[in-house]
């Protein structure tokens, strides 16, 4: 009998286009301190750390786990570095969950970040990120992930009649949400017309359909209830949030290898969601999930995710993006943080920042003007590449 871990501490920096006054290690130290303080505990009570960063190329550094342990008072404790592309933080949380449920650790600090903003020029950043495509068969053909995402969305449009206006709505919604999130990189008030008149990247995607490149860090402290009673002075001050389920799945990384019927959607996301929902006790996602952070690397990817996460039928995502059902006041508010388009994308921190948002919402601790009242169940959705590795995590607040 395993017991799901509790989320006992959270930390997150302001996401920004360029963190000029804080290095990556400074940001990671900051979020680790926030998470420890949030839990009301000290580093000495932590059993292990999991360090998340996607790429070695943005900081010219490898093996940052031990360096970060040195920065936050965890020297002597074991550390594991986890990498899963855009899903890095979510994979790390899944790994921490397994460590706790196996009994290998009672408390795990998951912390990570990335400096995608200005550590290299934007065009170089796109090429570094494109390295998560196959270097022998695909990445040399495009050099930027806009292209494979565009091929998938072209297929979605052909198969289901989805329109550019429909997914432009997601770009408008997420930037609007970011306006009220004080930690967001860049909120904007824009219109669908603004999106449709922004410079083209790869048809049908345009500049404002794409997410941001950000600097930022985030941390999540997971622990057993027994540990929390013993070491967390804030335990009992608020309804505990439990990390009840995690599911992941892989697809062929080369999108040309995917079955034709799977080109319009993320097949691995469907499977990851199925596994996560099963583990988290969700049988009807639409009625049981109260809030979701969805991986909006491109606006259309969020539309595809609505379908793959079971929020609507296959092919219905475009209509759903129009009718407001995934807006903050809708059926399942998606990306109240602003998502990758508004809160921003510091790749190694993304999955953790999503958990930060969802758990903060479940705790009722976000700013009142953007709260989703009464939310009990929340999920996060991330993937690497163009859906090569998909991870869905489920969090549930006690009654």
């Amino acid at each position, binding site marked *: 009998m395993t017991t799901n871990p509790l989320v006992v501490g959270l930390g997150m920096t302001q996401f920004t286009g360029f963190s000029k006054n804080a290095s990556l290690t400074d940001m990671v130290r900051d979020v680790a301190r926030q998470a420890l303080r949030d839990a009301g505990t000290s580093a000495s009570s932590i059993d292990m750390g999991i360090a998340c960063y996607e790429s070695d190329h943005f900081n010219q550094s490898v093996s940052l786990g031990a360096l970060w342990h040195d920065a936050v008072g965890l020297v002597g404790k074991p550390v594991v570095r986890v990498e899963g592309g855009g899903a890095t933080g979510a994979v790390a949380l899944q790994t921490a969950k397994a460590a706790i449920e196996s009994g290998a650790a009672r408390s795990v600090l998951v912390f990570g970040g990335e400096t995608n903003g200005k550590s290299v020029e934007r065009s170089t950043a796109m090429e570094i990120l494109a390295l998560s495509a196959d270097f022998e068969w695909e990445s040399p053909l*495009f050099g930027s992930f806009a292209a494979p995402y*565009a091929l998938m969305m072209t297929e979605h449009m052909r198969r289901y009649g989805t329109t550019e206006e429909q997914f432009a709505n997601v770009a408008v919604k997420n930037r609007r949400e970011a306006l009220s999130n004080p930690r967001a990189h860049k909120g904007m008030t824009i219109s669908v017309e603004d999106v449709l008149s922004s410079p083209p990247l790869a048809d049908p995607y345009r500049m404002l359909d794409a997410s941001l490149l950000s600097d930022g860090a985030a941390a999540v402290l997971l622990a057993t209830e027994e540990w929390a009673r013993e070491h967390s002075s804030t335990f009992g001050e608020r309804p505990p949030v439990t990390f009840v389920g995690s599911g992941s799945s892989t697809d062929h990384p080369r999108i040309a290898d995917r079955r034709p019927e799977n080109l319009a959607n993320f097949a691995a996301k469907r499977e990851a969601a199925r596994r996560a929902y099963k583990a988290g006790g969700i049988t009807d996602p639409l009625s049981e999930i109260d809030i979701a952070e969805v991986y909006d690397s491109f606006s259309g990817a969020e539309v595809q995710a609505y379908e793959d996460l079971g929020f609507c039928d296959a092919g219905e995502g475009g209509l759903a993006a129009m009718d407001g059902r995934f807006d903050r006041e809708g059926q399942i508010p998606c990306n109240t943080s602003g998502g990758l388009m508004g809160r921003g994308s510091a790749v190694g921190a993304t999955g953790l920042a999503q958990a930060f948002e969802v758990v903060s919402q479940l705790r009722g601790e976000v700013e009142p003007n953007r709260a989703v009242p009464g939310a009990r169940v929340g999920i996060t959705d991330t993937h690497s590449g163009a859906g090569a590795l998909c991870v869905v995590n489920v969090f549930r607040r006690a009654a």
Partner: protein
Amino acid sequence: MKILVTECEGSAETAAVTMRYETTLRYQHVFGSISPFLEGLEHGVLRATRCETCLSTFFPPRPYCPEDLEATVWYELPGTGIIATATRVHVPTTFVDIEPPYVLAILRLDGVDGSIMHHVLGQDVPQPGTRVRATSVGDNLRHPLLRVAFQIERTP
């Protein structure tokens, strides 16, 4: 590593020091088991592999059949196929010396199961079902995958 400039804004407790530098890395990439495919591209020939046990065909070529774990054999493809999906890319990249916009497509080739992503010559986005044929392009200063591109033969 070549330092280009170091800069300091503010002073004492408010100081923010940054450094710009440049680094050049030279790599040697081993293509290994897909080398016969890439060698073929130098002559405009596309090759796939086949499992002699179950007769499955593989493209991109696989050196072993994942079902039978038997070594596969190489064979030549006619170099023709159809476009499944295509997009026009507007973003320049140093990965390839092609001026955008250019057309990127998923292609289903004749004579083999499986598909490949590749460039299609021209700037208009072709419809699914458009027939294409491989043609030699570029030289050995390109990624070997880019020694061919596909030209449109017939629209649907």
